């Protein structure tokens, strides 16, 4: 794992250097992404103050959910979700051959080569919003922060599952760029507290598709609102990671490369 992390950091530095080869475009992209990602929290701000808000949630608590979501999403996107895009591009051209030629775990190597320098802006934006929201919330405990971070890591696991399944889908069907829109839907659902959903959906998003783990549950854990749902979602994430890894590795066996 240490060796992989070393390689990942090396690759990250190279990918950033690659993007910086076109400095103007890189900075504009960073700023544009930062502004675009702020639209979500801004929307929540408008909804919160122009409606009855979210029952049982203060504004800063709701903002905390947005911050966590952006942090989890940003981290996932820059660190590994690039495999979806990369699957599309490399599979069409048969360039996955090069990944398979490296004496490393195929998935880890593919993740290394799929680092997305632009999405760092999302992550930084998320951290800033989270920190700002935290500074306005009272009664935070160390245990609460620990639980929040643990659930955020599982939230990253949720995106990992989606990335693996989407990449497998691309391996199977070649060229499925639209898969990103599915991820946007997850984000849209995970943005709001469980209380606003009908019970059946609430259960679905806690167990089979545990979307609440990407933001709502970590925020709840920090605020001391622990529930058995968090355990269900955590177990589900671990199981789903295991299943999606199996699917991904089984799918790459079908890799057929491209003609010469």
């Amino acid at each position, binding site marked *: 794992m240490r*060796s992989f992390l*070393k*390689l990942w950091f*090396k*690759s990250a530095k*190279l990918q950033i*250097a*690659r993007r910086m*080869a*076109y400095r103007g475009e890189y900075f504009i992209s960073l700023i544009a992404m930062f502004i675009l990602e702020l639209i979500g929290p801004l929307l929540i701000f408008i909804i919160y103050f122009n409606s009855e808000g979210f029952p049982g949630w203060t504004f800063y608590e709701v903002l905390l959910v947005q911050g966590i979501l952006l942090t989890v999403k940003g981290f996932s996107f820059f660190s590994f979700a690039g495999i979806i895009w990369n699957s599309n591009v490399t599979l069409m*051209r*048969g*360039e996955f*051959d*090069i990944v*398979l*030629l*490296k*004496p*490393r*775990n*195929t998935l880890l*190597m593919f993740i290394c080569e799929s680092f997305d320098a632009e999405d760092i802006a999302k992550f930084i934006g998320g951290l800033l919003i989270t920190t700002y929201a935290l500074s306005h919330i009272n009664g935070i405990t160390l245990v609460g922060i620990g639980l929040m971070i643990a659930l955020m890591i599982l939230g990253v696991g949720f995106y990992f599952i989606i990335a693996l399944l989407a990449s497998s889908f691309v391996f199977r069907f070649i060229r499925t760029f639209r898969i990103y829109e599915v991820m946007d839907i997850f984000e849209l659902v995970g943005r709001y507290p469980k209380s606003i959903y009908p019970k059946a959906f609430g259960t679905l998003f806690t167990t089979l598709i545990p979307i609440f783990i990407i933001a709502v549950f970590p925020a709840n854990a920090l605020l001391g609102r622990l529930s058995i749902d968090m355990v269900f979602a955590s177990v589900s994430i671990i199981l789903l990671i295991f299943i999606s890894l199996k699917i991904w590795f089984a799918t790459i*066996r079908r*890799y*057929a*490369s491209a*003609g*010469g």
Partner: protein
Amino acid sequence: MTIIKVEQLKKEYTAYERGEGFLEAVKSLFKRRKKVFRALKGIDFSVKKGDIVGFLGPNGAGKSTALKILSGILYPDSGNVNIMGFTPWKDRKKYVSHIGAVFGQKSQLFWDLPPLDAFYFQKAIYKINEDAFQEQLKKFIKMLHIEDIIKRPTRQLSLGERMRCEFVMAMLHQPKIIFLDEPTIGLDIIAKGTIRNFIREINKEQRVTVIITSHDLEDIENLCNKVIIINKGDIVFDDKIKKLKISRKKYITISFYEKINLKKLKKLKGVRIKKIISDYIVRLEVNTYKEYLDEIIKRIRMGKRIKDLDIREPPIVDVIKRIYKK
């Protein structure tokens, strides 16, 4: 010593066909015609350590598929491959650290960064120690004359310059076998020469076994000691390149002082006119299977005096064309 042993290697692809036009495109959304394409029909061959083996075949013959299976990229449907004790697709991670590959149409370099950055990334991937890395790099820079180009962004390099850097990428970790798929494709004659010299040198100095596919028969003639010809998924020739060249056929260009009697020439047994260059000069293909060459020439002369005579082996391209047609 045998370094590669391949037995009954088979691989099939399923492709989907559809007819022409919009309606067919819509139809294919719901129902597709499946076509199974047998890329490899159960091939057997072996390669000795230090060999330079040319893998030849027309487009779609199965040579790239074979190469990809041998380099651990593809899984075969059945068959056995033993390369230095490894089965490529089963022991991929360990196995690929002992091989190198240059695929002419797929780059290992980073388009926007200098090749030197890619070399250092390769060092990290293969966990090459600093001293060995510097020693190898220095050697390859000298051999491939790339000192001035490795610090320039890859996108600014010519195809020949890029290809030389691809070879460094493939050789930095000192592989025992190197797979080359069309390594000289699109290169000019000078760049081809540099690459060929490099292949020859690494083969001689480091005893690297080289497996090369190329449509450029000069690559094969200049480099290989063994040739495997594959056609429609089967091996149709597997022997030393000398045997491929040794043919009972000879090409003779003959020049006379007098006009040639083409009617009589056409009637001669075992003699075929390839090209009439002028009234006095003609290129012939003769078969020395049943008759000695001097006797054939005597018949061709028909008592006339010869001004000039040139006897050659048929070009390898003709030999291979004949094998493809079988």
